[in-house]
């Protein structure tokens, strides 16, 4: 598998090719969309994108962790973490493409 990395630049380019706005405006829109999703998640909302997946915010309780280097016990504060669950459509798409060569 020859792995490459896709970034905001490629997403903006795709929007530019698809919709015919300026490159600048396309880049701004990509940013706005990521921002709106982040805002909703910060409010604790679930974000569901059909045929892609859902982002959930999960509350984690406090627990005792350990500094792996020193072995010292340190409390891990209660915190909120983000979980992504891919939809079946995305799982199937990824598997059909990569699975055969695995």
């Amino acid at each position, binding site marked *: 598998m*020859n792995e490459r990395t896709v970034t905001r630049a490629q997403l903006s380019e795709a929007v530019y090719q698809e919709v015919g706005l300026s490159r600048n405006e396309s880049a701004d829109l990509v940013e706005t969309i*990521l921002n709106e999703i982040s805002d909703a998640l910060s409010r604790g909302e679930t*974000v569901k*994108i059909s*045929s892609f997946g859902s982002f959930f915010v999960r509350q984690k309780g406090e627990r005792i962790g350990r500094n792996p280097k020193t072995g010292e016990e340190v409390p891990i504060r209660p915190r909120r973490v983000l979980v992504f669950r891919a939809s079946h459509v995305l799982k199937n798409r*990824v598997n059909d493409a990569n699975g055969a060569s695995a």
Partner: protein
Amino acid sequence: MTKSELIMRIGELNPHLFHRDVERIVTTIFDEISAALARGDRVELRGFGAFSVKQRDARLGRNPRTGDSVSVASKVIPFFKTGKQLRERLNGGEV
């Protein structure tokens, strides 16, 4: 928030755009991410997070109801790791 609510919100923020264009923009972005994952590529969106695919080996599973063992083929699953900035934002900006 659903995809259609996201589209509505982006439309409100960009009143000069046609609704169908906003729809295409949002769809294009998620399609592009899906296509990259299907190629086995990584998608890195600094501050937001990174999507990648992970290989799961074939294993012997069990039917939880009957206890029969069944072989589960190896598969590839999409994976998301939250970016540092978003992780901090979820926790009220503290580190």
